[in-house]
């Protein structure tokens, strides 16, 4: 590896090195605050390194890695998401574990981020698979980190088994593709695939199909969504937010990379399969979310639906489709982190505030927090003045440009169903009867940090909803 290679990977190097340093730090002195601060510093340093790199020429390291604006944009998105999540994690950890085992959490968090951030710049099956496994294995532990809690172990095991299975599907798919094309890099595959004849194409499509199954598990798309609600419910809110954003975001970026570089849009059968998955995800995700009384489970199903919306843009493909998917994912990440952040801020001790009736009357007890939560929910529902609306607009335009009227209609239907359950939470918050659940105040500084983060996220959502032009310009020149 040359110096230029390492320089182009600087954000990842900082992150990886930082993980080792933090490990040493923990060995020397166990202090939650210290580890937390060092985590923030490392992630900030990585973000700055990525920002400095952003306007430079794309740099390819063999066939394995390609650092370009697209990859860096996603890296920045994932790193920023982790930054926000670690702040909420701090609040949650202080409450859940008054005395022990708080520090290693951050190692796992950063390791998972490293995996996800590597995935977005991978252009080869090997680098992809390695980074995906780094991500997933860290997540197994994170999901069941609060093992004293009732459902944590169950959630962790469920995630372990299903994620391992999906990795197997992914590997088998890769093997099939390799068998028929002899290529493992996305570029090479694109070049070879153009000259394949009848039976080889079948193998290639079958391989891609198996890979889609694997990816479908990771993204919790219908019909591979069964694990999502249980895992979201069992894991703590920051970890749920992490699964919903950083882990899924990395996979989406990989999928975009893969399909564009290997030019898989040519295979109508693959696209048909994706279309079916998209329609099912939008409808079933929303319908199941409708029946939940637990806010985290509801958000889990709603994120199934949101990934379905995202597929509409994905199916639309190059150009507008990629931009729309990227923009929508950005908005989705901001919003979901905000929503889970509110849950972790208002949660008291071991029991998280997840039942819908714990939110009763929140508007009158803690108006500011409730207003923030309302903004996040409205953005998820895609109501104007919030970024969610612009995102949905972008998706619809991208879909309709390719005349995907069916998908557009399903998206609209899904949004209407979606409104129903988001409104339910908002209505609960507006109820007048007082709720006697006491809200335990967390340490002041951490709580203030959480509030600050939530306020920033809400302002971003409103800002992007009212004046999205500048961000769209960024997304357009990726």
């Amino acid at each position: 590896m040359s110096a230029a290679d390492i320089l182009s990977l600087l954000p990842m190097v900082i992150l990886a090195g930082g993980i080792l340093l933090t490990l040493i730090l923990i060995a020397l002195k166990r202090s939650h605050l210290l580890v937390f601060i060092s985590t923030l510093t490392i992630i900030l340093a990585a973000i700055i390194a990525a920002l400095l790199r952003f306007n430079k020429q794309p740099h390819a390291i063999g066939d394995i890695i390609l650092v370009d604006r697209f990859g860096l944009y996603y890296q920045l998105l994932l790193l920023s998401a982790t930054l926000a999540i670690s702040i909420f994690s701090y609040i949650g950890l202080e409450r859940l574990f008054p005395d022990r085992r708080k520090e290693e959490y951050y190692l796992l968090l950063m390791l998972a981020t490293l995996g996800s951030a590597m995935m977005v710049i991978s252009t080869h099956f090997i680098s992809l698979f390695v980074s995906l496994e780094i991500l997933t294995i860290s997540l197994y532990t994170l999901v069941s980190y609060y093992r004293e809690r009732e459902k944590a172990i169950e959630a962790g095991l469920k995630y372990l088994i299903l994620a391992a299975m999906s990795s197997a599907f992914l590997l088998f798919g890769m093997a099939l593709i390799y068998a028929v094309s002899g290529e493992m890099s996305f570029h090479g595959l694109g070049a070879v695939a153009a000259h394949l004849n009848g039976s080889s194409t079948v193998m290639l499509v079958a391989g891609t199909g198996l890979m889609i199954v694997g990816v479908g598990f990771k993204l919790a798309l219908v019909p591979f969504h069964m694990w999502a609600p249980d895992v979201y419910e069992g894991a703590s809110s920051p970890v749920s937010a992490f699964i919903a954003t950083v882990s899924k975001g990395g996979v989406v970026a990989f999928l975009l990379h893969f399909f564009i570089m290997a030019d898989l849009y040519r295979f109508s059968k693959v696209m048909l399969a994706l279309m079916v998955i998209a329609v099912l995800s939008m409808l079933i995700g929303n319908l199941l979310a409708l029946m939940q009384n637990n806010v985290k489970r509801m958000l889990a199903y709603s994120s199934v639906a949101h990934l379905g919306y995202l597929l509409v843009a994905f199916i639309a493909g190059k150009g507008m489709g990629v931009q729309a998917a990227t923009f929508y994912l950005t908005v989705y990440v901001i919003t979901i982190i905000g929503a889970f952040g509110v849950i972790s801020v208002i949660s008291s001790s071991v029991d998280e505030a997840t039942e819908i009736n714990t939110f009763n009357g929140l508007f009158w007890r803690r108006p500011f927090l409730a207003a923030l939560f309302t903004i996040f929910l409205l953005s998820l529902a895609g109501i104007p003045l919030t970024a969610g609306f612009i995102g949905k607009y972008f998706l619809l335009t991208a879909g309709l440009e390719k005349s995907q009227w069916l998908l557009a209609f399903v998206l609209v239907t899904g949004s209407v169903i979606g409104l129903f359950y988001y409104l339910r939470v908002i209505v609960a918050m507006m109820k007048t009867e007082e709720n006697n659940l006491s809200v335990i105040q967390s340490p002041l500084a951490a709580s203030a940090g959480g509030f600050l983060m939530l306020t920033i996220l809400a302002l971003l959502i409103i800002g992007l909803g009212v004046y999205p032009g500048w961000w769209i310009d960024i997304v357009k020149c990726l």
Partner: protein
Amino acid sequence: MILAGLIILLMGCGVLAWLAGRWNNTLPRVISLIGVAVQLLVVVWLWLTHQRGPESGQWIMTYTHSWIPAFGIQVKLSVDGLSLLMIALTAFLGLLSILTSWREINKRVGFFHFNLLFVLAGITGVFLSLDLFLFYFSWEVMLIPMYFLISIWGNENRTYASYKFFLFTQGSGLLMFLSILGLYLIHGQHTGVFTFDYEHLLGTVMAPQTAFLLMLGFVIAFIVKLSTVPFHSWLPDAHTQAPTAGSVILAGLLLKTGAYGLIRFVLPLFPQASHQFAPVAMVLGVVSILYGAKLAFAQTDLKRLIAYISVSHMGFILLGIYAFNEMAMQGVVMQMVAHGISTGALFIIAGTLHERIQTRDIGQMGGLWAKIPKMGAMGLVFIMASLGLPGLGNFVAEFLILTGSFMANQTLTIIAALGLVAATIYALRIMQKVFYGKEQKIWVIADFSIREMCIMITLVIAVVWMGLFPSAVLTVSRPSVLKVIESVADRKAQTREAQLHRRTNRDQKITMTGASLPGHHWNTNPKKAN
């Protein structure tokens, strides 16, 4: 800039009112009152200075500012006679609704006024937008605060009502959004210019089937808002459960956005498809008139009764719009303003009564005139207005609509006219049950206070003024109405030609869909327009 200022003013005052509500209950009221009063003054100033403005139907004032250039989205606000009338009505009713809720709302006053002003801002945006994206944006902006108004300050069944309101309007609105996007993309692909600008989109060329489908998206959104049967079922619930100010805004303004949308967007954008749709729309209008009237007669809940009166009156609007001639269209504009005022007043009376005797059941009222003569007298005026008594605004409106639509479709108009008879029956029943007759219960009840009398007297003046000098309103709206009629009639000739040509080419046996419309008045139209 003034136009954008109007919207920003309302939003700004809304935020201020919310913040002020943390310390004081009166401050938010004063802030919102000032905000809306300023809006009213600006609108009156616009009206007075530009009244004798351009006859050719150009815009009185336009404001354009780029918003999201990547998609060709602008902030484009324009005002012509029609929108001037509508924002005047918005400011006027907005002012009154703040005054009515002065004593009624005592909980979370700040947040209430925040929502109220945001609804008004959204409505103002709808009436001013000439960019379809901005239009949809404003369309949605007015929903959420309205939803909050109903679901927080509403009556006993508010949750159900607010859900229903929201889902109906949001669902139909999204269909409209799909149509807007479809139009945008078709225009873009034809001309290479991707824009949401109304004036650019006006001449979009597309296949008749596509045009019809796109038009349906718009029409569904608008007739849901207009509460046309069979999409009316949200309206009685929402109107009944909303607080007084909410009912006034719902009935007086929100319903009008539907009518405005049909006139401003559907007819000029899809002239040919509108002609195909006209018979259906007119039938729906007539059904609404009669069905609404029948249901109004059957209600025992006072607010619900008034809500069904609205359904009936909105039927006239639909009938008039699809008659495609100047007279009917002028009647529609008149009806929009007059209905806003008369129904608004009725809702204020019903709200005040409800506030004082805690019931809306007219079975429990009766003989109230003796105790509250002022309220009774005011009630009489507005009930007479809504049954269409000559001399008041609604009469002029309904007369013009019926005369105009008689030229377009005689049978339907004759049936629609029966609605006036029904109106007399249901309206007099209110008077009979509430103010006359035997007293059902011994109520201790206060009459209108000075504040409330001021509100009512302003409304009476407005409705009488419109009845006696309708030309004051009609001259303002005339240029815009003529423009709409022209755009429908103009392109009609072309499209019919094109249709004939294509059909003769393809298959001569297919009967023309347009042929079911009586043809004679189309020829007279342009002449009348001049």
